């Protein structure tokens, strides 16, 4: 009964979305207030209906209703409740329903919080959102219906992939989708602006909160995925340049460029066509990611079950959305009024450089991910593009990006002098060089690329802090004065400093873990001790442990430092009985400066067990840093200027007589 209600809600939602996608557009071009107001009502209704549908599917999972085919394929009665719930989106159909849910929720959010938008803009944005929703709902209803029934209902399900039965991975998709779908709102804003024929400072101010929100969630989603890979896959790696990871990185890069480009539109009424293009691209890359994961054109450890028919549908949808957007762009963007002029050396120039470099990074990732496909189709030759390629092409471009990142905030708008800006950063430069030298000598006495990269991380941190200190006149004015300035600092600037500094920490963590980790692999029998990185590690015992839906072999290792007991680690190998798959549970001990990381391997015939020990310096900084980047974004989002007093469009001031 309830699954049918859910199914029916989806059908109704599709109908509402069709209405929402057409009539408000008509109303906007005709100036018909009633039609435009329809957009708001429809958005709220659509959200309500999709919530119903999602609730119905969740209910089916929670009650283990095995008459629903989706539940049978992906759930099991013995699964813990939290994984029953996260199992709702741990499969293709359910995750598409989650997309549709978040899409409709964002539409409702625009309807509710967009009261300060002009009617024409808001109705157009809601209409575009709805049209995207039509695509997803149609995809759901026609090719990926989560509410299909099975008759007769089997006694139990096939269980959820054991890899997904993990808190980190349970929340990774919702955060990612919040990011992807958030960019659909900025896409809608861009299309609406192109339809209106006007991109101005007010538009940029209205778009900013949505861009920030999407970007923050996407950052968190990617960080969570990376952290999960780190503690599950068992050897301390955190980024593998797998196609699905790249599919989430590309919209992030475009979104970061969009965020910064929109600032120029807001402050200087310039870079308009860039910003509109980036808004279209960010969402298009999100859709491209969805296509790559679900169509079967690429192999990946992460990909869902492949289905070319679904692939064609998503491709058609991608073409409609991206092609339509880019066609509109090609037609209307040249007509946008050019804005303020500026010199190459200026804040605008720095932000253009930022745009260029981020887009180059995105293009590198895109090319690397898709090239095997292109080459295979054209010539039949097979090549692989893996981490060594990206390390050689992606990482070097980060260098000028990081270098410019700290200089940009010191440059003035319209035109600026480069040398004074660089002089203000001389302390940061010196500290970074010293840090690089110290790092290279502390590790192995050679100047390595890793030490240089480490220096860049320090540059990011010190450079951002120096800029903030300058803003507060720290050290040059009385302390009370600096405090006053701190209170008066707009949250957006605070957010920028937090995010840029946090990025530095991410770089430090990534460099240290990748280049300077220690590892030891040993076959140990119970009672044996090894020495590793100053610790004495003793394997005490290996025993069998039963979990809710698995049997595990658990090793207990006592770690001592200087003879004194330090901690106990218990890595496991879990065998999930229903799926007959094994997942390793690593044991990690962190003191926030390094991770001590142990995995249990196979046992041999003599009672020995393969134990792998790793010391990952600064690894926690990667994810703490990423979380702080998102925090910076949220701080920026809380800026009062974005909520109240959003500028209304004032006529140009009369020139003085």
């Amino acid at each position: 009964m309830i699954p049918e209600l859910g199914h029916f809600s989806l059908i109704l939602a599709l109908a509402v979305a069709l209405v929402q996608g057409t009539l408000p557009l008509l109303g906007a071009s005709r100036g018909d207030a009633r039609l435009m107001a329809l957009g708001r009502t429809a958005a709220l209704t659509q959200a309500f209906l999709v919530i119903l549908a999602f609730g119905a599917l969740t209910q089916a999972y929670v009650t283990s209703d095995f008459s629903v085919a989706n539940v049978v394929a992906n759930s099991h009665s013995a699964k813990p409740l939290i994984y029953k719930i996260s199992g709702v989106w741990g499969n293709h159909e359910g995750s598409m329903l989650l997309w549709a849910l978040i899409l409709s929720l964002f539409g409702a959010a625009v309807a509710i919080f967009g009261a300060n938008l002009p009617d024409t803009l808001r109705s157009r944005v809601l209409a575009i959102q709805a049209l995207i929703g039509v695509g997803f709902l149609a995809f759901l209803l026609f090719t990926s219906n989560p509410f299909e029934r099975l008759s007769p209902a089997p006694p139990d399900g096939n269980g959820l992939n054991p890899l997904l039965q993990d808190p980190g991975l349970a929340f990774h998709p919702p955060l990612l989708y919040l990011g992807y779908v958030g960019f659909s709102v900025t896409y809608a804003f861009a299309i609406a602006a192109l339809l209106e024929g006007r991109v101005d400072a007010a538009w940029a101010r209205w778009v900013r909160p949505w861009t920030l929100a999407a970007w923050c969630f996407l950052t968190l989603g990617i960080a969570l995925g990376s952290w999960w890979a780190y503690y599950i896959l068992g050897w301390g790696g955190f980024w593998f340049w797998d196609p699905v990871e790249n599919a989430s990185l590309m919209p992030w890069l475009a979104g970061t460029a969009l965020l910064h480009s929109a600032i120029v539109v807001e402050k200087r009424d310039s870079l308009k066509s860039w910003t509109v293009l980036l808004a279209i691209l960010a969402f298009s890359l999100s859709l491209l990611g969805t296509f790559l994961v679900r169509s079967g054109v690429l192999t990946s450890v992460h990909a869902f079950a492949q289905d070319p028919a679904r692939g064609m549908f998503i491709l058609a949808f991608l073409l409609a959305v991206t092609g339509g957007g880019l066609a509109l762009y090609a037609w209307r963007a040249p007509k946008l009024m050019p804005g303020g002029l500026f010199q190459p050396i200026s804040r605008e120039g720095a932000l253009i450089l930022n745009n260029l470099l981020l887009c180059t990074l995105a293009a590198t990732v895109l090319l690397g991910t898709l090239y095997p496909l292109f080459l295979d189709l054209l010539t039949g030759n097979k090549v692989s593009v893996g981490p060594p390629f990206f390390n050689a092409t992606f990482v070097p471009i980060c260098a000028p990006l990081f270098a410019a990142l700290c200089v940009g905030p010191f440059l003035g708008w319209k035109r600026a002098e480069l040398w004074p800006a660089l002089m203000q950063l001389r302390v940061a430069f010196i500290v970074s060089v010293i840090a690089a030298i110290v790092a290279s000598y502390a590790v192995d006495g050679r100047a390595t690329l890793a030490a240089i990269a480490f220096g860049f991380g320090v540059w990011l941190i010190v450079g951002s802090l120096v800029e903030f200190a300058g803003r507060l006149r720290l050290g040059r004015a009385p302390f009370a004065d600096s405090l006053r300035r701190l209170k008066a600092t707009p949250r957006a600037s605070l957010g920028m400093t937090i995010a840029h500094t946090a990025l530095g920490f991410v770089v430090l963590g990534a460099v240290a873990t990748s280049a300077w980790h220690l590892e030891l692999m040993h076959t140990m029998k119970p009672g044996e001790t090894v020495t590793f990185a100053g610790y004495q590690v003793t394997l005490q015992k290996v025993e069998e442990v039963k979990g809710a839906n698995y049997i595990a072999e658990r090793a207990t290792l006592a770690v001592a430092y200087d003879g004194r007991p330090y901690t106990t680690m218990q890595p496991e190998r879990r065998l999930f009985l229903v799926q007959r798959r094994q997942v390793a549970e690593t044991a990690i001990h962190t003191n926030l400066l390094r991770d001590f990381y142990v995995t249990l391997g196979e046992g041999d015939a003599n009672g020995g067990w393969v134990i792998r020990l790793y010391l990952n310096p600064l690894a926690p900084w990667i994810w703490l840093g990423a979380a702080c980047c998102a925090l910076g974004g949220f701080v920026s989002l809380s800026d009062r200027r974005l909520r109240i007093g959003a500028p209304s469009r004032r006529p140009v001031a009369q020139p003085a007589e």
Partner: protein
Amino acid sequence: MRRAIALLALLFTLPALAVEPSEVLADPALEARARTIGQALRCVVCQNQSIDDSAAEVAHDMRRAVRERLTAGDSNDQVFAFMVARYGDYVLLKPPFKTGTLVLWLGAPLLLLLAGSALLLAARRRQRAGLAAPQPLSDEERRRLDELLATARCHPERSEGPLRQSERSLGLRPRDDS
């Protein structure tokens, strides 16, 4: 039960660092090279993993072959050539730099160069047209400016003096935006 787990484990283990203690070479320098090479060779039966990370049989064979070639005195390049002769370019995680992969390696940097130079050229063209730099004032305008500055107040509500000399000497055309 333990044996069943072990058996199932053999068939269904997940990838992790899969190099076994028994495979490790005695010479640490050779082993380090074997690891570097292993990270750059693709496991041909897995999805996007290097042979060092895969527990597949073929990956094990390849790791062993790498170490045998290294012990026999091959250079890193020769080991890669050995693998490519058997599995093709597909087995290299770093695609070779040849005519077929020029676009791959050079595409993005080329794009950056083209876009960057196009923007710089456009900026220079604008500069040459004199649009970016402010026009100098005519004598009449300069006289009017001096007049205004001599009498204008900074903040009408507070009585401060006229604007400072230095600002007058900037010679800017008065603008009408805020």
